[in-house]
C-alpha cells in the first residue's frame, strides 16, 4: 500500500485513476492543478507523485521545478503522466528530476504494478546514494552519476519516437554512457552497483 498524489486537470482521469488505484489498495490524493497539488504537499507525504504536463495555469514542468526547488519536497519521487510525448529538450532538461514518464493511455490494471516498480527503483537508488555518500566524499559526482542514469533511461525509453533524430539521440546516449562509465571507473566497482542496470520498459 502506497500513498499517491495525482495532479491532473482532467476530472475523468482523476476519477478513473483513483478508482483503479483504490481497488489495488493505495491511498490516492488528487489535485486538479499544479498549485493545488503543491498546496496539498503541506499535509500529504506521498510515496510518489503522478504529474500531468499540459495543465492550465501552472503546467507540469513548472510544478516539477517548484517541487524540486523546495527543500521540503525535493526528495519526493515524481513520475510524469501525460498524453504528450516528451521532446529531446524536455528529456535533457527534466529527465534527471523524474523517476519515470508514463504516456496515456495506460493499461490501468497494470498501473499499480508499474507504480510499484517505479517506487522500488526509486528506493533502491535512494538507498544506494545514501550509502555511497558515506564512502565517497565527492557527493556531486554521485548525484551526477544517478542524474545521468535517469536521463539515459528516458532517452532509451523514447528513442523510437525520434525517428529523424536517431543520430542525435544515439550521440546523446553514447555521451551519457561514456560519462557514467568514466565516473564508475574513477571509483571502481562495486561502489556503483546500479551501473547500466536500467532497462527501459512500460
Amino acid at each position, binding site marked *: 500500500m502506497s500513498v499517491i498524489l495525482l495532479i491532473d486537470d*482532467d476530472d*475523468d*482521469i482523476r*476519477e*478513473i*485513476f483513483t*478508482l*483503479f488505484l483504490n481497488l489495488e489498495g493505495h491511498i490516492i490524493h488528487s489535485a486538479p492543478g499544479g498549485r493545488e497539488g503543491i498546496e496539498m504537499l503541506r499535509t500529504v507525504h506521498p510515496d510518489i507523485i503522478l504529474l500531468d*504536463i*499540459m495543465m492550465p495555469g501552472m503546467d507540469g514542468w513548472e510544478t516539477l521545478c517548484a517541487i524540486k526547488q523546495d527543500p521540503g519536497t525535493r526528495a519526493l519521487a515524481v513520475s510524469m503522466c*501525460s*498524453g*504528450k*510525448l516528451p*521532446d*529531446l*529538450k524536455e528529456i535533457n532538461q527534466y529527465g534527471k528530476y523524474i523517476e519515470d514518464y508514463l*504516456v*496515456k*493511455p*495506460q*493499461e*490501468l*490494471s497494470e498501473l499499480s504494478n508499474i507504480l510499484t516498480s517505479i517506487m522500488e527503483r526509486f528506493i533502491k537508488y535512494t538507498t544506494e546514494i545514501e550509502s555511497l555518500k558515506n564512502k565517497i566524499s565527492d557527493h556531486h559526482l554521485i548525484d551526477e552519476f544517478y542524474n545521468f542514469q535517469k536521463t539515459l533511461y528516458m532517452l532509451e525509453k523514447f528513442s523510437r*519516437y*525520434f*525517428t*529523424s*533524430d536517431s543520430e542525435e539521440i544515439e550521440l546523446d546516449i553514447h555521451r551519457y554512457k561514456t560519462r557514467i562509465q568514466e565516473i564508475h571507473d574513477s571509483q571502481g566497482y562495486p561502489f556503483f552497483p546500479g551501473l547500466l542496470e536500467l532497462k527501459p520498459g512500460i
Partner: protein
Amino acid sequence: MTEKIRILVIEDEALVADDMSEMLTEIGYEVPGIADTGEDAIALAFKHLPDLILMDINLLGSMDGITAGGEIRSRLGIPIIYVTAFATQAIIDRAKKTTPSGYILKPFNERQIQTTIEIALYNAAIERQLKERDQTIRTLLNTVPDDLVLINSERKIIAINESMAKKLGQMPDALVGKVIGDLLTSPVLSDMLSRIITSPITGRSTYFEEEWNNRWFETMVYPVADRTGTNIRIVIQSHDITHRKHLDEKLKEEGISQIGKNMEQFQILNDQIRNPLQVIKGYLSLDHTKYGDAINKQVGIINNLVTQLDKGWLESEKVQQFFLKHRPMFNKSFQEQNEEVDLQ
C-alpha cells in the same frame, strides 16, 4: 497648301543679300529676315526659327559667320549652309566643327543654290528622325529602373542608360565608345557582373541572382546579333530584387513559424485526445464487456494515429532548425552555389 521653306540670309553686303533673297523667293522659298552681323543672325534665328540659314563667313562686327553658325547649330539645331567667296583650309576646318549642312562658293547660280539647299533640308530631316529615334530609345532606356548596357564584341559601350552610367560615375554620353572593362577599376559593379563583363564573350545568354552591397540583383546577359547574324552584341540588364528577396525571406519565416504553431496546436490536441482514450480504457477494463477487446483495439488505433502526429511535432523542431541552419545558403553568391553543383 504646304508651308513654304523659310530661309534666313546672313550676308554683310546688303546688295548681295538682296540678290540672294530675291533668288530664293523666286525658287519658292520664304525669306523671313536678313542680317549682316553674327549677333543679329543669332537673334533672328531665335525669333523666326527658320528651316535653314545661308551664312556668309565674313560678317560685319567682331563675330564671324562660323562663330554665329556654330552657336545657332548647337543651340537650335538649325541646318547651316556657309556661303563664302574664298575659303582657306583653316577656315574650312573651323567650319567643319560646327557640322554644317553644306558650303557654297560665290558666285553661284540658282540651280547650284537650290540643289545645295534641297540636299541640306533632306539631310536635316533624316537627322531629325534619327534624333527623335535616339530620344525615344534613350527615354525607354532611362524609364526602366534597371541597369542597362549594350556592348559590342570588343566590350565597347554602344548604349548605356543613366542608372548604369551613374554606377560607373559618368554621364551616359561620356561612356559610349569606352571599353567597359577599363571602367571597373573600383568595385562599382557586383563581383559576378564584373567577371562576366571582363571574361570572353560567348554566344550564350546567362541569368543569375547575387547579393552585392547588401542588395540583391537579378542580372541577365544575352547576345543580340545584327541582321547578318555575325556582329554579336551583348545586352546586360541588372534588376534590383532586394524587396522581392526580403519578401521571400519573410514569407519563408512566416511559413516556418506557422508550421510551428500548427504543430503546437497538435500537441495540445493530442494530449486532450489521449485523456478520453485513457478514461475509455479504464471503464472498459472495469466492465469486462463482450466487446471490450474490439473497443480496446479501436482505442489503440486512435492512439497510434495521435502518436503519428506527435512524431510530426518532434520532427518539426528539426525541420525548423534545418531551415535556419541552411538559410546562409541562400546568401551565398551565385558562383559558390555553382561550384557546389559542379562538385556534385
